């Protein structure tokens, strides 16, 4: 499932719910991304999505992950709107028969989300506001999977 939300979420509750009722899944891997304060440079992070389009584009990569890693299931929850330092911004969970596939699928999904997903990100800080683009490292991370 892929979902955007403008509300804070609790990663532990998402994991409990995701892991429940599985009998053939031997591995669940999760990743939680938190908004960083950047030593005070970022008071608020603002994320904009294109509702419908953003979920559908992420869904295409989720389908690739399902196939490539033989996933049983996956969950991606992403915040939009204004996010304060320390708040969870993204949660990814993957379920697979064995751990390697679950770990790698989670890593793969995050590299995509950080570099290519249809979001527009703005940093609000004491020095004003600025739009942020993916870093060179974000692109290198994603190219590992090509």
């Amino acid at each position: 499932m892929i979902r955007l939300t403008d509300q804070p979420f609790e990663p532990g509750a998402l994991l409990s719910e995701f892991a429940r009722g599985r009998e053939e899944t031997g591995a669940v891997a999760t990743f939680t991304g938190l908004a960083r304060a950047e030593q005070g440079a970022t008071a608020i992070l603002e994320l904009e999505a294109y509702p419908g389009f953003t979920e559908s584009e992420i869904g295409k990569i989720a389908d690739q992950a399902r196939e490539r890693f033989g996933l049983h299931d996956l969950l991606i929850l992403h915040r939009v709107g204004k996010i304060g330092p320390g708040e969870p911004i993204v949660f990814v969970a993957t379920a697979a028969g064995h751990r390697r596939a679950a770990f790698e699928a989670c890593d793969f999904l995050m590299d995509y989300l950080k570099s290519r997903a249809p979001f527009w990100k703005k940093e609000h800080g004491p020095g004003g506001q600025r739009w942020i683009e993916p870093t060179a490292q974000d692109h290198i991370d994603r190219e590992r999977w090509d």
Partner: protein
Amino acid sequence: MARVLLFGSLRDLAGWRERDVEAASVSVLRAQLAGEDEALGAALEGPGVQVAVDQALVRGDLALSAGSEVAFLPPMSGG
């Protein structure tokens, strides 16, 4: 009448987020917007700016119908 949506830095530049514009195609729409706001017109042609019509990315020109949704997407930042 097409519904035009701007995202990210394009929205800040234009000072609006969505508007209805009368245009029969994407190229006519671009010309129309550029005629009203030269800086926006140039930004819409900028590197990495993509266009989606009814939530599907398009390259080149495309005819628009009444109620088409046209979104201009600056380079995506990732989450």
